[in-house]
């Protein structure tokens, strides 16, 4: 799997197929038992603590439910990394925070606490926080989950615009096929921890692979089982044959 600079790549697959695990490997939270993850020429699991933290400063990650710090205001959440990692004066941090919040359309929420935001707004604030230090690699873990159609389109558009504006590389883990095919440059499909299909959005739409077809069109029948393996249904219901 390769993520070229400046590209927006989606990783799709059923729940439990290893998408989030992959992001954790890229961020160095997990160590691989086999193989390696290379970011900017450095093998992540070989980095020591300080080098790993230095590498993470070049990364931004949006967690599935935002993971905003609940004891801090929206403003302080976005300013967090600037205060921790830079010695910028507070008035400059103020301007940068407002610019980041303006980019996600939430400049007016700077004084609110995370508990006062809707799910979509929290996701957008988390997005502003993830790109606070203009990272070279941005990772999104299910950014579209649970969003209403308007928020979904807005967040999707933001993901694309931020990638292009920052010249960053974006890895987007998602279940939302239709929204992500509109914005990404390339797609990987995963199943049980391995890549089972890949291609550009056009190639994915035109694919005749049963797996891709079932996933893209949300069909119940196909190689991807809907039911978790279990015993005989009749037997579980105590029904007799005949």
């Amino acid at each position, binding site marked *: 799997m390769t993520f070229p600079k400046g590209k927006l790549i989606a990783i799709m697959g059923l729940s439990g197929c290893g998408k989030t695990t992959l992001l954790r490997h890229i961020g160095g*939270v997990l160590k691989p038992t086999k193989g390696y993850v290379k970011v900017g020429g450095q093998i992540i699991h070989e980095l020591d603590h300080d080098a790993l933290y230095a590498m993470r400063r070049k990364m931004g990650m949006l967690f599935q439910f935002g993971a905003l710090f*609940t004891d801090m205001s929206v403003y302080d959440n976005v300013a967090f990394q600037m205060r921790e990692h830079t010695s910028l004066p507070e008035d400059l941090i103020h301007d940068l925070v407002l610019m980041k919040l303006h980019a996600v359309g939430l400049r007016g929420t700077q004084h609110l606490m995370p508990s006062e935001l809707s799910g979509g707004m929290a996701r957008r604030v988390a997005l502003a926080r993830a790109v606070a230090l203009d990272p070279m690699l941005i990772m999104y873990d299910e950014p579209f989950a649970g969003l209403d159609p308007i928020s979904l389109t807005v967040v999707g558009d933001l993901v694309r615009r931020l990638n292009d504006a920052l010249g960053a590389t974006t890895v987007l883990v998602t279940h939302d096929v239709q929204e992500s095919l509109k914005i990404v440059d390339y797609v990987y499909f995963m199943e049980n921890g391995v890549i089972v299909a890949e291609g550009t959005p056009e190639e994915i739409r035109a694919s005749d692979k049963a797996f891709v077809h079932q996933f893209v069109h949300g069909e119940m029948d196909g190689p991807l089982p809907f039911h978790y393996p279990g015993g005989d249904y009749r037997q579980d219901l105590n029904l007799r044959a005949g």
Partner: protein
Amino acid sequence: MVSAFVAAIRVTGHRSINAVWRTGMATRFFFLTLMYSGNSFRRFHLIVKELFSTGVLSLIIIVVAGLFVGMVLGLQGYETLRRYGSESALGSMVALSLVRELGPVVAALLFASRAGSAMTAEIGLMRATEQISAMEMMAVNPIARIVAPRFWAGVISMPLLAALFSAVGVFGGYFVGVIQIGVDEGSFWSQMQAAVDFRDDILNGVIKSFVFGTVVTIIALFEGYDAPPTAEGVSGATTRTVVTSSLAILMLDFVLTAIMFRGN
């Protein structure tokens, strides 16, 4: 019969290994907290913020409990001392009981149930809602940023709360003994002044509360940090904080008392 015996041994062994493992993890966590404490002192406002939630917000319960404990001591002490015609020693009895024993111990028990449980629940929820993972991904060490300021706030606030508990308790004893019952005010204060020694009584009480503050705070922080990221996990961790802290306080109290006051 044999298989039940083997199963019992297996369960005991598993629990023992788990207890040793957790003790080791907690010890490692304690040393990591000390190691990453430098940032907290460079940015002292982080500790001050936590002092508010651990110390200031515990004031009410400490003051009210201290007052009632002192009043009960005044009543019980008077009834006992009266039998020996030593009512005038009420002041020294109340003060010594509070400064040496009840102040540090009861304040620490209250601190564990109010501030300790709150710390565990807060950090456990931060873990469950991926706030700690987010901090790690932002290259910010959560032990330095979240744990260390709370640890030092607990260590600083515990002796202060215990001192306040004892002071309010003395006034509780004074209120019941002198104002309500009518013990001589001069004897009450002069006996107290003569009996209470700064080094043997007050300083040892402060050392006790410092040790209790350290132990309660690190237990609360470890339980929260190590809590499974579920509602059940956080509630279990909160319960463990209160139970483990309370037992640790009482056991350590015995050990410290044996060391400090043996032969006095």
